[in-house]
C-alpha cells in the first residue's frame, strides 16, 4: 500500500499503571489513508480516538508511549522520527483542527499576527502575508476579512474562530489534516456549515483528512471510510455509508440503535447496559472488551479477543458472532394513548421576560432581553421540550421557573399561585412542587458529600429528625429507582462515571417527589449509549411515578423521542410550538426548518447539503 499517505499497522499505545502493570490504551489499530480521502475515527469518550491524533503529533501525555506497531506518513516512520523533522512536518504537511475553537487562539494577540507568524513559518514573504491572510479568510467565507485580521479572538464567535483555524490549517496546503471533534463545541446549525466548509477545503487542496468524532451519523455523511473504536480497539472498519446502513459489529449496531432519530417512526432507543470500561478496569478484562455488554455474547467471546477480520467484501469486524448482529433490534413503541385533554394545568407562564442591564461608557446602559415575553403551559404528567441554540434563552427560562433568577416581568403560576414575585409562600410552593436536574454533573454534586448524603439531601431540610439508618434506607431506595446499585451509597462523586453522576442527580431531584421536574441539558455531553440509558430511565420513571417535565435541550432528536410537546426558542422568544411529532414533521417557522435541516439525516444514503449561508 505504498500510495497510502498515512498508514498505521498494529499501532499499540501503552501506559504504566500503579504496581508496574502495563495497560494498552490503543490496541492493534491498522488503517491506510489515501490522499484526498476522509477517514472517520468514531467512538465514545474513552475509546482512544484522540490518542491517535496525539500519537501523530507525538504529544502523548506523560507516561504513554507507542509499544508496538507502526505509524507512518508518506513512508516515513512517525514514531521514530527525529524531533526536528517532526516539527518541520507539523504545521506544513500535517495540520490540526482543534475541538474548542474559542480557546485555541492566543487571547492577547489579534488574528493577524498569529496567522502571520504561521505564514512566516511556512515561508511566505513578509510583504505578501497580509494579502495571503485575507485570501485565506475569504476562502473560508468570513465576511469583512480585512476587519477580522485586527480582531481579538474574544470578539469572534465560536464558528468564526473555527473558520480562522481552518484557514490557518489549510494555508500551508497540507497533505494531511487531523480534525479532532471540530464541531462538538458548536451549535448545530454552525456545525453543519463548518462540516460543509471542511469538505470544500478538502476538495480544493486534495488533503487527506482524519475526522475524529463521536457522532456516527455525522461521520457517515462526511467520511469515505470509518473505523469504529471501543475501549481502545478497532471493532469495525468499512465504507462509511454501508457501515452506518448495516453495521456488522454488535457495538456499532447498538450505537446505531441508540441514536434518536428525527424522522423514523418512534421507537425505543436501544439502551446498552453498563458503560465503556475505564482505564483501570481494562486490564482486568480477558476476551472481547465488549463482552460484558454485548447482546450476542457467547462463551468464546469471554475467553479470547477477536481481531479485525474481513467479514464481507470491503468490510471488517472484530467479532466471533457477526451473524447475530442483524438480529439486534429495539422495539417500536406503541403510540402513547391519547390522554384525555382534561388534564389540569400545572405550570402556566405568561409574558415572562428577563432583562439584563449592561453598563456602557460612564453613564449609558443597554438592556439585553434574554427572555422576551414568553407564554406557555405545562399540564400534569406532560413532558414538554424546549429546544434552541445557545443564546436562545432556554436555560434562562429554567432558572426563572425554579427561582434562581428573578423575572423582570410576567407571571409564573404553579397550580394557581404566582411564584414570580418572591415571597415565603412562593418559595415554599416551589420547593414542594418543582425540582431541577442540573446539566453539569461535575458542579451539581458536592464533592465532599457521599452519594447517600447527596441523594437524601431534601430530608435534611424537611425532616431533620429522621434517623441515620432510615435515611440510608431511603437513599438506597432512590438509587435503586434510578438503576444504581446500593453499594454506591458510600462513594464520593469523584468516584462515579458521568452517567452515574447524572443518575444521582436525578435521584436527588426525585427524593422531594416533585410534580414538575426541570431538566437542563442533562444528557448533553454524555456518550450516546449512556444518553439512551438515561432516556429509557426517564420514560420508566414517568410510567411509575407520575410527574411533568420541562426538558431543555439543543438536541432535537432526543426531544422528539422523549417529549409530547415542544417549544422552539430563538433569541428569547418562542417561534413555534406544538405536538412534537407534528412540529418536526411539518415545521412552519423558518428557524425551525433551519434547525431540522442542520441535523445529519438517519439514512446515510440520503443527501445532506449543509448550506453555505453567511458565516456566523
Amino acid at each position: 500500500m505504498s500510495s497510502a499517505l498515512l498508514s498505521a499497522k498494529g499501532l499499540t499505545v501503552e501506559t504504566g499503571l500503579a504496581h508496574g502493570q502495563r495497560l494498552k490504551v490503543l490496541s492493534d489499530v491498522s488503517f491506510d489513508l489515501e490522499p484526498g480521502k476522509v477517514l472517520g475515527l468514531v467512538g465514545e469518550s474513552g475509546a482512544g480516538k484522540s490518542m491517535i491524533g496525539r500519537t501523530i503529533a507525538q504529544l502523548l501525555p506523560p507516561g504513554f508511549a507507542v509499544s508496538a506497531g507502526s505509524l507512518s506518513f508518506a513512508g516515513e516512520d512517525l514514531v521514530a522520527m527525529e524531533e526536528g523533522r517532526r516539527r518541520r512536518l507539523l504545521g506544513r504537511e500535517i495540520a490540526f483542527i482543534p475541538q474548542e475553537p474559542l480557546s485555541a487562539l492566543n487571547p492577547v494577540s489579534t488574528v493577524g499576527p498569529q496567522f502571520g507568524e504561521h505564514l512566516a513559518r511556512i515561508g511566505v514573504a513578509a510583504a505578501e502575508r497580509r494579502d495571503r491572510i485575507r485570501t485565506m479568510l475569504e476562502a473560508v467565507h468570513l465576511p469583512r476579512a480585512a476587519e477580522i485580521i485586527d480582531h481579538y479572538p474574544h470578539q469572534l464567535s465560536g464558528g468564526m474562530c473555527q473558520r480562522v483555524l481552518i484557514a490557518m490549517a489549510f494555508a500551508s496546503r497540507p497533505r494531511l489534516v487531523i480534525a479532532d471533534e471540530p464541531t462538538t463545541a458548536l451549535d448545530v446549525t454552525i456545525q453543519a456549515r463548518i462540516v460543509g466548509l471542511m469538505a470544500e477545503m478538502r476538495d480544493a487542496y486534495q488533503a487527506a483528512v482524519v475526522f475524529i468524532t463521536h457522532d456516527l451519523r455525522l461521520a457517515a455523511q462526511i467520511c469515505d471510510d470509518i473505523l469504529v473504536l471501543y475501549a481502545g480497539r478497532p471493532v469495525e472498519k468499512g465504507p462509511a455509508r454501508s457501515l452506518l446502513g448495516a453495521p456488522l459489529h454488535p457495538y456499532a449496531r447498538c450505537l446505531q440503535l441508540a441514536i434518536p432519530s428525527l424522522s423514523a417512526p418512534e421507537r425505543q432507543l436501544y439502551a446498552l447496559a453498563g458503560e465503556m470500561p475505564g482505564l483501570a478496569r481494562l486490564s482486568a478484562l480477558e476476551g472481547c472488551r465488549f463482552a460484558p455488554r454485548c447482546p450476542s455474547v457467547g462463551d468464546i467471546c469471554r475467553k479470547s479477543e477477536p481481531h479485525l477480520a474481513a467479514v464481507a467484501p470491503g468490510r471488517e469486524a472484530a467479532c466471533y458472532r457477526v451473524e447475530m448482529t442483524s438480529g439486534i433490534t429495539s422495539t417500536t413503541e406503541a403510540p402513547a394513548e391519547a390522554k384525555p385533554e382534561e388534564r389540569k394545568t400545572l405550570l402556566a407562564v405568561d409574558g415572562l421576560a428577563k432583562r439584563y442591564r449592561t453598563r456602557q461608557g460612564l453613564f449609558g446602559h443597554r438592556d439585553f432581553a434574554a427572555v422576551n415575553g414568553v407564554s406557555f403551559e405545562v399540564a400534569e404528567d406532560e413532558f414538554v421540550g424546549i429546544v434552541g441554540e445557545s443564546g436562545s434563552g432556554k436555560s434562562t427560562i429554567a432558572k426563572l421557573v425554579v427561582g434562581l433568577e428573578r423575572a423582570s416581568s410576567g407571571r409564573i403560576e404553579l397550580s394557581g399561585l404566582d411564584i414570580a414575585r418572591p415571597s415565603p409562600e412562593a418559595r415554599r410552593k416551589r420547593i414542594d412542587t418543582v425540582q431541577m436536574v442540573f446539566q453539569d454533573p461535575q458542579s451539581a454534586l458536592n464533592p465532599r458529600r457521599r452519594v447517600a448524603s447527596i441523594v437524601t439531601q431534601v430530608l435534611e431540610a424537611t425532616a431533620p429528625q429522621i434517623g441515620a439508618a432510615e435515611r440510608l434506607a431511603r437513599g438506597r431506595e432512590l438509587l435503586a429507582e434510578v438503576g444504581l446499585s446500593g453499594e454506591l451509597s458510600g462513594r464520593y462523586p469523584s468516584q462515579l462515571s458521568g452517567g452515574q453522576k447524572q443518575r444521582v442527580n436525578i435521584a436527588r431531584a426525585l427524593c422531594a417527589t416533585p410534580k414538575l421536574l426541570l431538566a437542563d441539558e442533562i444528557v448533553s455531553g454524555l456518550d450516546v449509549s449512556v444518553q439512551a440509558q438515561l432516556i429509557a430511565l426517564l420514560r420508566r420513571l414517568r410510567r411509575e411515578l407520575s410527574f411533568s417535565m420541562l426538558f431543555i435541550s439543543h438536541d432535537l432528536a432526543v426531544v422528539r423521542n422523549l417529549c409530547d410537546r415542544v417549544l422552539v426558542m430563538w433569541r428569547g422568544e418562542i417561534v413555534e410550538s406544538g405536538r412534537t411529532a407534528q412540529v418536526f414533521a411539518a415545521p412552519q417557522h423558518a428557524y425551525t426548518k433551519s434547525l431540522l435541516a442542520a441535523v445529519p439525516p438517519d439514512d446515510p444514503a440520503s443527501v445532506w447539503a449543509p448550506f453555505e449561508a453567511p458565516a456566523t
Partner: protein
Amino acid sequence: MRKVAALRSGRVIVGLAIVAVVLACALFAPLIAPHDPEEQNLISTLLPPAWSAAGDPTYLLGTDSLGRDVLSRLLYGARVAMTVAMLASLGAMLAGATLAHIGGYFGGKVDWLIGRAVDVWMSFPPVVLSLVLMTGLGAGVRSVILAIVLVDWTRFCRVLRAEVLVTTRQDYVAAARLVGFSHWRTLTREILPATLPLLITLVSIEMGIAVIVEAVLSFVGMSVGANQSAWGQMIADARQSIYESAWNLILPMLAIFVTVLGFNLLGDGLRRTLDPRLMQTRDV
C-alpha cells in the same frame, strides 16, 4: 482520606515539627530557661556564645549589653511571639472569614460594602496602619494583637471572598437551596466545607505574618515593655553593639526566621495536599 495524605507531605511534617518545637519553648520557658531573662549582670556584658573562646558556659548563647542571658530571653521571647501568633491570627480569621462568607454568598449591596471597606483598608501599607493603630491603642502586647486583627482581617477577607464566590456559583449550592436549605444551612453545610482548606492554610501563614509584625513593633519599642523580652526588641538592642557582638543580632533573627519558616512550610504543605483541584481523579 485527604487528611492522611496531608500528614505524609514532607512540608507539613517539617513545618509542624518546627512549630511544635517553638511552641514547646514558649510553653516551657519558665522551666527550661537557665536564667531570669530580666536579670542583669553588668560584669559579664556582651559575652559571645559558649562555644567561642571568650564564652562562658553558664551563658550558653552569650549575654546582651546589660548582661542578660540571651538564651533565656529567646525562650521568653517565644512566649510573646506564639501568643501573638495564635490569638491575632485567630481573631483576624474570624473577622475576615465571617465577612468574606457573608459578602461572597449574599452578594449585592452587602458584598459591595464589604469590598469597598477592604479596598480602603488595603490602600494603606499594613506597617503604616499598624503604627497608626498602635499610637492610638497605646503600647503593649494586647494592642499588638488588636492591631494585627484590625489590619490583617482584610487579607483573609479578600482571598476567601474569591473562593466563596467560586463555590457559590457551583450548581450544588443552588441545588441545596432548591431542596429547601435555609441560607444558614447552605453556608455551613455546603460552602464552609469547601473553603475550610484554604482557611486553614491562610491561618497558618497568618501566624507567620503575626510573628513578623510583632517583631517589627517590638523593634520600634511599641510592643512589650522594657521589662519583658521579645525578639524584635532584642534586635533593636543588638544593633547598638553590632560591631562588638554580632551574635546578639543573629540569634533573634534566626529565631524569627525559623518560626516563620515553620508556619510557611506548614501552610504551603497544607495548601498542596488540600487543594481540591488535585483531588479529582485524573482521567485520561
